[in-house]
């Protein structure tokens, strides 16, 4: 009898390594679009995800902004939720036990109003069982330094990343703001300050005007733009960052299908995060994972790592 080909051997490898984390596949959820995991667990098997990134947390709970907080825009949406969250303590007590039952890395997004708050949150989360990595949201203002946004000022960003690096041994991901002139420079600063990975892009600041009232639609006046509308900007920024840093990149911005995810991977992202698309299709992450696998099979790749950063520039 001859050797029968084992069909399992032909299933391509989808797993990737990010900052010491081993992901089953490169698809994770974007912070703020997937709650604390529980909300979507009735729609999909969380164990199939590459990783889960939970809603951003601060040391103390936050009420968030007044409404309207969201408005739809062509192929996108603006949000100004105002970082409403339950706080680090309640998260550890009430939400983390649920997440511990899954066999996937839990990445916790966090932020602060000051460097001290960042340090404090990072320390508490690092001591909690079941947190596998931290993602720093640096797109918020520093109240100790004249409300300069941490992530748009190179010096402030360097200070806060350096401080958090000393406060945690967990893999540290810095989530970059696109509201800067040179995102490559910001990524480089994060890398030099000790980040294990960068994720990009956070939302792009925008505004929608109600012409009859001559007022902004959002109570906060401005909000962060997400959805397919931002995708080409995000892909371009991932490519720019890929050229200047050695640490892994998590790419995000308007991904709604496997083809979109592939654009990011080819441009240099080692993993991708899906955000706004979860709202439209709770099962979208699973469909993207299946779509990636199909692409690799159809195109004759045996490992997803073969296509990461494979962009050909003439």
């Amino acid at each position, binding site marked *: 009898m001859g050797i029968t080909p084992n069909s399992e051997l032909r299933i391509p490898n989808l797993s990737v390594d990010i900052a010491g984390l081993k992901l089953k596949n490169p698809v994770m959820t974007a912070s703020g679009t997937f709650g604390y995991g529980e909300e979507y667990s009735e729609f999909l098997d969380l164990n199939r995800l590459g990783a889960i990134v939970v809603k951003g947390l601060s040391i103390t709970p936050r009420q968030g902004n007044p409404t309207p907080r*969201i408005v739809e825009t*062509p192929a996108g949406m603006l949000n100004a939720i105002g970082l409403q969250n339950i706080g680090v303590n309640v998260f550890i007590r009430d939400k983390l036990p649920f997440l511990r039952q899954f066999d996937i890395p839990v990445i916790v997004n966090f932020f602060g109003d000051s460097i001290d708050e960042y340090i404090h949150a990072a320390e508490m989360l690092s001591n909690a069982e079941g947190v596998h990595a931290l993602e720093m949201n640096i797109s918020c203002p520093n109240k100790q330094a004249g409300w300069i946004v941490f992530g748009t000022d190179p010096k402030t960003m360097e200070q806060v990343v350096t401080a958090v690096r000393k406060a945690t041994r967990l893999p540290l991901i810095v989530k970059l703001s696109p509201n800067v002139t040179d995102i490559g420079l910001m990524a480089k600063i994060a890398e030099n300050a000790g980040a294990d990975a960068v994720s990009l892009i956070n939302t792009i600041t925008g505004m929608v005007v109600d012409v009859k009232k001559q007022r902004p639609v959002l109570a906060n006046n401005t909000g962060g733009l997400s959805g397919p509308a931002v995708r080409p900007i995000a892909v371009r920024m991932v490519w720019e960052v890929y050229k200047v840093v050695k640490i892994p990149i998590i790419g995000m911005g308007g991904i709604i299908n496997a083809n979109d995810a592939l654009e990011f991977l080819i441009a240099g992202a080692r993993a991708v995060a899906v955000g*706004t698309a979860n709202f439209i299709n709770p099962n979208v992450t699973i469909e993207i994972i299946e779509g990636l696998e199909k692409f690799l099979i159809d195109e004759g790749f045996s490992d997803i790592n073969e296509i990461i950063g494979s962009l050909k520039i003439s």
Partner: protein
Amino acid sequence: MSKYFKAKTVDNISLNKHFRLLNLSPLSDIDIPQPGQFYMLQTGDTCDPLLKRPFSIFRHEENSLSFLYRIRGKGTLSLSRLKSGDIINAIGPLGNSYPVPDGDFIALAGGIGIASLLPLMRKFKERAYLFYGARSKEELVMMDEAKAVSKESFITTDDGSEGKKGLITDSLMKFFNSLPITHHPLPLYACGPTPMLRELYRIIKSKIQNPKSQIIECYVSMEEYMACGVGVCLGCVVKVRSQEPVDSSQKWIYKRVCKEGPVFDIKDIIWE
């Protein structure tokens, strides 16, 4: 349990220039919706509109879901273009539902608000005192069915083209005043525009403040912009009174219309 499912458009009937009735046939098993619950419906097949829109369940029958809607913006305009046979994605049933009334009850509907209340009135046939107001006769959508399942009905229009001319909350006030103050109060269920609900709150509050009158149970279905419908985007929050506020200088917290709502006790909402 809510589900993400595909559904086939059976028909999408134009009732008049404002209103349509969309009948969907789910392509997989779905859970039975309760009166007051809603679905997130895909309204188009491009990225614009991008997000699903929330719609109250209007009627549920075996393997069929009906939604009554008014063409108001991009989403509902896009929904109005669905043709028989078109397939859309939906999520639901979502949110809480109207608490079950013990006996007779009052249903207060403003315009398209009738869509959310009719399932309750149908389920508890001839137990509702219906108060239904709209701008004009043609905006009193589904009035005949609503009257037919009610015990008694009171109709108003702003222009007097049907029923009494005036506000439906004025009719409700008169009804309250016609009852002896010791009359056992009927639970009240309301859905409609915010000015109507605010006026209802004023009426309820004045009754509460009268020591002789009994407490009225009053439930309102709230509306807010929402992106996800399942509690994660935190777009659809309303201010609700709380003993354990996030900020100790306040006496309220934000609750999600999609998850803790859409039905709230009117006394819990902070009406601004």
